């Protein structure tokens, strides 16, 4: 993942009003990214699941694709939709909206799949829409409150606060790598 990819992804983002703003912002943050190091603060790809906005480490994101009907795998949990062919590689598709018990789960033209590269595996996850790539500084990230939610709070690394225009956006920052490789996702063989 380099700054070009970050720009590319931002350009791929669904046609949202902030898309144009996102592109320029990504360009700026890409420039900054080249100079800064990553850990807790860093660049986050933000996406929507229902009413909530989430942010994940941009370096884990391989690409963004539009949703296509995957091949169903029998006896898999409901949130695993199946597998798709990604340029010759078989990639499982997970619907995070189902996993996180979102109220409405629809597959529209705007539904996108974020293809992640975590722990050496390629996995795709269905989200409602992708927003932008944000550079969050350390003080913009607040520690995560201790909530019991459908996502085990150990996967939530913090809350990002971003002001865009008049709006105060609250981003739930997730450790997507840990979430995808966790046992409850059942994506990896447990030997």
């Amino acid at each position, binding site marked *: 993942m380099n700054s070009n990819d970050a720009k590319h992804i931002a350009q791929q983002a669904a046609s949202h009003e902030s898309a144009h703003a996102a592109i320029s912002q990504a360009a700026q943050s890409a420039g900054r990214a080249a100079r800064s190091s990553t850990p807790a603060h860093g660049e986050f790809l933000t996406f929507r699941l229902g009413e909530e906005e989430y942010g994940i480490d941009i370096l884990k994101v391989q690409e963004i694709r539009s949703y296509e009907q995957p*091949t169903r795998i*029998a006896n898999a949990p409901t949130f695993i939709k199946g597998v798709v062919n990604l340029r*010759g*590689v*078989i990639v*499982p598709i997970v619907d995070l909206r189902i996993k996180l018990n979102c109220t409405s789960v629809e597959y529209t033209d705007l539904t996108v799949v974020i293809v992640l590269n975590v722990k050496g595996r390629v*996995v795709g996850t269905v989200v409602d829409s992708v927003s932008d790539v944000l550079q969050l500084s350390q003080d913009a990230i607040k520690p995560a409150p201790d909530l019991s939610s459908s996502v085990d709070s150990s996967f939530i690394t913090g809350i990002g606060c971003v002001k865009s225009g008049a709006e105060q956006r609250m981003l739930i920052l997730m450790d997507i790598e840990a979430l995808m490789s966790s046992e409850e996702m059942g994506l990896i*063989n447990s030997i």
Partner: protein
Amino acid sequence: MSNMNTDNNTASAAAGIDLTQFYQVFFEEAAENLDSMEQQLLNIDITSASDEDLNSIFRCAHSVKGGAATFGFTDVAELTHQMETLLDKLRRRELQATVAMVDVLLQADDALRAQLARHQGAGGDPVDTTNLLASIRAMQGGGVAKVAVAATTVAPATVAVESRAPAELISDLGTSPNGDSKPAALRVLELRVGPLNDVKDADNLVDLFGEIVDLGSIEPLDAGQASDGIRRFKIVTTSCDSELMDLFTFHVAREQVKLLEMTAGFGFHDGAPGAPAPSEPEPTYGFFDDAPGAPGTAHAAAGKPAGSTHPADAATAATATTASNPTLSASAPASAEAKGAAPAAKAAAPIESATLRVSIEKVDQLIHLVGELVITQAMLAQNSQKLDPALYQQLAAGMADLERNTRDLQESVMSIRMIPMSMVFSRFPRMLRDLAAKLSKQVNFVTVGDATELDKGLVEKITDPLTHLVRNSCDHGIETPAERVAKGKSETGTLTLSASHQGGTIVIEVRDDGKGLSRDKLLSKARERGIDAPDSMSDTDVWSLIFAPGFSTADVVTDVSGRGVGMDVVKKNITALGGTVEIDSAEGYGMSVKVRLPLTLAIMDGMSVAVGDECYILPLASVVESFQVQPGLIKTVGGTGRVVEVRSEFMPVIDLEEVFHVPKSDTPPATRIMVVVEADGGQVALLVDELLGQQQVVVKNLEANYRRVPDVSGATIMGDGRVALILDVSSLVRHSRH
């Protein structure tokens, strides 16, 4: 490693060029030479070795020596030089070959492997070859080497032991029970060492004694001090005086050592094979943990054949112990990973053949690209089907040619990765020879189907389980010659390893004509361990009990096997490869273990079927026939099981719609289709909606990014770009079995 650096720095500095870039080639070639030499040594006919055989073995040693000297591996060069001198005399007929010589040369082979492994960075202690070198030099000097009679190949225990001159320190791996005339009575001796200038010198003796495994025990009778400079020790051993003297004179002068009888020895059975020494806990499955081929390895006096072992003998054995460990681990990867060298050439005995050394990554990349080509060709074929053949005649002809060429290309490329089973089998003659000798058994080793080919990736993984099965057969299956004769069998047991292709699988069988499994023993052992084992259990199920972890009915736990750690690991390993293990046994007659493995071809012929709106692929090799289901043809059994009658045979029915929970289609077909498939010797009839077609499919691994899915062996990409699941027929057949 520092050893290597200093040596090589000198060599490189002298040469003025950086030699490290050539190391890899040297190591690979040396490994090949050592393999070749070992194989020839095992097969050599002592009484009538041909000039060509001897020359060939000489050349192997010579090549290794040359390379080693060039690269500054002085330890390797020195050992091979001594071997070469001995071999030279043999090929000039100045000396007569003996079994003892073959043994020493084989041990030297092991030591060389260990040395090379160290140079390659395997770590570990420097290989001590002093005793080995001494033995070889002694042999070069002629000594007394009576011609050994009889068997040459894999029955070392049948070779009569020649009497040895005291000066010869030869290790004899193959002493038969009626060999040495000395009974191995346990003796208690008093050892007096001195007068010594430094009484602590005697401690070296104690250390040395302790290093020689199975020599006995030594304990000081004094408290480490001695008034007259003489130390006294109590020794309990089965070795004779001369051997002990030889041992002690490594450290002190002969005049300073005196051995006296302490008490009358206790009578002990001759040889006592099968009398175990208390052994340390050690996992037996680790084939590389103990060292077959070293008589008197750390733990079992059990295997020690009658007749005492010379202390030097045991010393050499100790060397061989350390040597063999890295040896076998080094030789296993060395032989299995013969870097893509053409398999046929390696399988044949040492002939110069045209081979090419290719890295595995290149071959894998080639296979990957061919796979993509097949997918593209399939897509083109599918799209061009819609065209009017009359209008597009040339295109259709071109497509037909393309399909044929692609198929040929695919087959050629796949065969690059296939290597013959002889590669796997090649390690067993040596191992069995040493093992049989150690256990005082006579085993005839037969291989069938050496040329059967197997994917390289599988070869590496199948070797460990097979080794364990072979050792089990030799240790627990085949009885001692006395037992066999008492049962009216021939003295020599037979162990057969066979490999064959059956459908889309490879079947490897380990069969022995030993005593087989005892149903009663297994049942009682199972009950002891709290496993439910009713008398009504079928034989097959009883045999499967041995796969339970920790299960063993061995009366005697030897260092070879018997701890019950092995079979369950074997089964797990085979299952991980997608295979199955079957056991069959007849008590008193023998036992057979069959391992079935899928031939994991990346490209295979598949039959696509429709179930609901979904498409699934069946391996064409497993499909027997298909037919339309007439109403009333399917009968139920026991309420839930369904069977269908096929030519007056009843076959279980598996409805794929149910197994895969396929949502019902909007337009179900009027009549459904039954596809009969076969796997693992069983047949089932699969119920599908429609037969879609037949094409070559590229097998993609689901587990790369996902996990193992039951009943699914992989996935493929269809002509339209969508993913279709390939069904695992063996697992479906197993469904119906319980």
